[in-house]
């Protein structure tokens, strides 16, 4: 079922705002399989950065279900939950960390991304070692809070 979007979701003339409060919530959807994984506080079914979220400053939690995902659940992280401490695997010359970036879409001003930084810089196509990604997925899963369970 598709529903009309709230007026506040539209970007219109608004520019991105890269200032985040550490306590600001970040929301995204979850399915029954994702919920099962979080039930074990497991990062297995957790997406690795780069992934999309709605930032709470500009979004109600249930806006992540719009327009057509109303049977899915809602998960929340806080900005401070995103691991920004750099990880440097043994014998690697690269350092990896995560950052939250406001990346508005025309029909979702709150749209943001949790992105990988490699040596402090974002590269969408950067090759991130799976051991590093897995570590962060686990950390995120341990900090995620389920706000609404999926109904299907």
């Amino acid at each position, binding site marked *: 079922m598709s529903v009309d979007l709230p007026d506040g979701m539209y970007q219109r003339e608004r520019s991105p705002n890269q200032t985040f409060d550490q306590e600001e919530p970040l929301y995204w959807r*979850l399915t029954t399989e994702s919920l099962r994984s979080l039930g074990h506080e*497991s*990062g297995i*079914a957790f*997406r690795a950065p780069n992934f999309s979220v709605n930032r709470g400053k500009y979004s109600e939690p249930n806006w992540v279900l719009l327009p057509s995902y109303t049977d899915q659940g809602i998960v929340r992280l806080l900005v401070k939950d995103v691991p920004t401490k750099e990880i440097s695997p043994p014998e690697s010359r690269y350092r990896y960390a995560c950052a939250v970036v406001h990346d508005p879409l025309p029909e979702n001003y709150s749209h943001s991304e949790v992105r990988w930084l490699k040596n402090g810089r974002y590269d969408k196509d950067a090759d991130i070692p799976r051991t590093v990604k*897995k*570590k962060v997925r686990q950390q995120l899963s341990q900090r995620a809070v389920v706000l609404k369970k999926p109904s299907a």
Partner: protein
Amino acid sequence: MFKDLGIYSAATLSDIPIDVIPSVSGSVLFTNPSIADSQPVEQVHLKRLEELLELSDGWDGYEAPRPNKQAISQGRAALDLLCAAGYPPTDILPSAEGGVGLVFRIDNRYADIEIFNDGEIIGLCAEDGSDPITWEITGPHSLAPALSKVCSFVRRPPRWDVSKGTITEPNI
């Protein structure tokens, strides 16, 4: 953080009744007959693996690939080893990165073996409040030691050392 995990001593091991049984791979496993009768649990996990094969791409509501047959097959091999030894995983989950994960959760300790669709395998051990440890599991003979490692970490007795017929202490 993971150096002192109460690794099982020889005295502890001597308290555990041990039999030797052949594994599915033709090697030898040590097992505890009092807890090795995990047939119903194994059936549940086998059914779960079949379920995972039925998932569609995007099963997480985003872009997660479905587990492929290779990952399911490798998951089955790992499950056989674990169930034969009497230590089935807590659950089996689809991986958001494409693949399957055998997960273990006991109290504040968590471990998993994640098998990706391209055949790569990565292990993880985590304890609440500390940074997780991850490692690559490479080569055909490294799966059993990795399973032993995660089982030991979540405080289950180490199981197999197949080559010499001795029990290997975990070394996390």
